[in-house]
Structures are given as structure tokens and as C-alpha cells.
């Protein structure tokens, strides 16, 4: 795992989710946020349930069901999962008006692109992710540096206010702290 000056601490992300009242983390685990997953599995967020799914389609559907039942889920995946789960994101997310915070890691991003526009990445998976979200009319934020941590709360509140999924793209490997 490569930790850089751009790496956000896993504890900082989870502390934000805890403050926002998240009840369930629904995921197909992400390479970029591995330290977050490990902390979740170690029980860092007391009382928050971790639900691992086989596919990202399921992540969005399980989140929809949890929301119907009165819970406050968050979805964690990597950028490839946004592509794989886009049909369920369209239907269970946008069509239903699901207020859902999505955290998606920019899997495959080269170190040389950190601190720069992801649209200029040499890796297709990275540079096509924001255009995918734009095409789907899913608002998006960049978590590119520890100082950007506030975008998690901003995205969460926007999802609630506008009743729609909102995505935070995690730009660099998160740190084990």
C-alpha cells in the first residue's frame, strides 16, 4: 500500500461517517480504501454494520432496502464498481430518489497523477469515472488530500437534501491511521 501526502487517514473518513449517523457500510471492497475496510472489520465504528456484497449492483439495491427500512447506509466501492453497478445506480439510486453517499476509490491511478486533474490520468479507469458520473447526473466531489475531508459531510447533506446519490471520489490510497 502506497501512502503519500495525499493519503487521507482511514480514521478520519470513518469518524466523519460516524458523525453523520451512518448505520451500515455496504460494499464490494475497494483497493484504494483498504485501510478503511480493515478498520471497519476491526470494529472501529461501534454499532455500524458492515455488509459485503458480491456485486456493486447489489450494493445499491441493499442500500435501497436499508433506506426503506429506516437505516442510513453508505456505499463503498472502487471506480470499476461504479461502471459495473451503473444499472442499479440508475434504477435503485436515481430512479427511486435514494439519498445515498457513495465513496468510490480511484483504483489504478498512477502516482504521477496525484495532485493533478484525474481527467489527465493515463489510466482509462480513472479518467473516465468522472465523465460516467456526469453522464448519469450523479453529483460528485473529489477527496484528493487530507484537507478535503469536509467534502464527505457536504456530499452526505446534498444527498439527503436532493434525495439522490452523491459520490465522493477518493483519489489516493487511504492511510493506516
Amino acid at each position, binding site marked *: 500500500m502506497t501512502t503519500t501526502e495525499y493519503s487521507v487517514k482511514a480514521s478520519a473518513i470513518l469518524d466523519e461517517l460516524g458523525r453523520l449517523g451512518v448505520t451500515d457500510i455496504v460494499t464490494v471492497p475497494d483497493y484504494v480504501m483498504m485501510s478503511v475496510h480493515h478498520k471497519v472489520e476491526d470494529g472501529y465504528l461501534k454499532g455500524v454494520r458492515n*455488509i459485503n*456484497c458480491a456485486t456493486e*449492483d447489489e450494493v445499491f439495491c441493499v442500500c*435501497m*432496502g436499508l433506506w*426503506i427500512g429506516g437505516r442510513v447506509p453508505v456505499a463503498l466501492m472502487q471506480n470499476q464498481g461504479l461502471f459495473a453497478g451503473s444499472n*442499479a445506480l440508475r*434504477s*435503485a439510486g436515481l430512479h427511486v430518489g435514494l439519498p445515498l453517499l457513495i465513496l468510490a476509490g480511484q483504483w489504478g491511478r498512477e502516482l504521477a497523477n496525484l495532485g493533478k486533474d484525474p481527467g489527465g490520468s493515463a489510466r482509462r479507469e480513472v479518467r473516465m469515472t468522472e465523465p460516467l458520473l456526469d453522464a448519469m447526473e450523479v453529483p460528485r466531489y473529489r477527496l484528493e488530500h487530507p484537507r478535503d475531508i469536509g467534502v464527505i459531510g457536504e456530499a452526505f447533506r446534498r444527498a439527503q437534501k436532493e434525495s439522490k446519490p452523491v459520490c465522493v471520489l477518493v483519489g489516493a490510497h487511504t492511510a493506516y491511521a
Partner: protein
Amino acid sequence: MSMLNREAVGLIAARREGAVVVTTMSSIFSVMDLSPSPLNVRVAPLMGGASSIGLGIALARPDRKVIVLDGDGSLAMQLGTLLTVAEAAPANYYHFVFHNGLLYEGGGRVHIAGAQKPDFCGLARSAGYRSVHDFSTKESLEKGLPGLLAERGPVFARLEIALPATPRWSENNPQGELPDWWFAQMPDDARACKEALARAR
């Protein structure tokens, strides 16, 4: 040695009591007719999503049974959901799969991948469902339902479904335009069910 979709839905609906029913594809029409309720969630247009939407509701509301009426083509699209459900293991989750090997049983009738060959019961059993059943007639379903719904979930049941007596779509009888309600049903049902469950806390 099989039953109609409508017959199976009628038997299950008669024993739903206060259960949430998550339904998709052909069963949507039967549920609308036979068991209207704010606790119904019709899953369309989203083939393959019913089982995991039902899982989310079941995990959120362990005090209430959740019945999923799934299609074989829908389950085939998301077979991994069997693993996800089995791991989460909600005790209040009842997963019925309507098996006829076809997509669009009401008129299209094109075969799903694998058609009649998949051993859905074997798949559910090996995935880790707590209990697995197979019903090929309405009589056997009627007899088995009370015990099945008293079991601790997740429970899986395959239902052998016969074709209705409606004609297959053709040049002189083509498929129609999808109506607006087909697109409004899932968001409408999701909000109604959310409100009904909140009131019932």
C-alpha cells in the same frame, strides 16, 4: 406438474400476514391483483434487484418477515446475491424463485441462459441458505407454506411455474409500449413502504 404464477402468488399472499412483499417481473401483476398493500415493493425496471432490495429491508427490519418473489431470469442476472444473502443470514427472509426457464412469460417467452437446467435449490443450498424447498404443484406449495414461513431464514423455495394460456407475441400480436406506471411503481412503492414501516414501529 406445475402451477401458474397467479396460483402461486395467491397461496403465498394468503399467508403473508404483515410481511413486506418484494416482487419483480411477472409476479408484479399477480401481486397487484391479489394482494395490494403499502408493504409491497414492485421492482421494475430493474431486473435482478429484488433479492438484494429485500435483503436490505430484512436487515433493517428484523421484526418483520420479508418475502421476495423472484424470477428465474432475474436471479440468473444476480446469482451472487445468493452468497450475499447467505452471509448476512437474516432470519426473516423468504426467497421464492418462479422457475419456468423463460423471460417475459406473458408473451415474449424467450429462454433464459441455461433454461430449465439450473439447479436453483442446489445453488441456494451450497451458498448457505438455512433451508431450501422445491415445489412443483400448487397442492404441495399449499401444504408446505405454513411450515416454511414458520422456519428461521434465510429460506429458499423454487416454484415450478407453468405458462399462462395467453398467446406468444408475434407479428400480428406484438409487444406494446411500456406505460408510464411501469416506471413510477418502484419509487412510489419504496416511499409508501418506507412510510408504512415507519408508522408501524
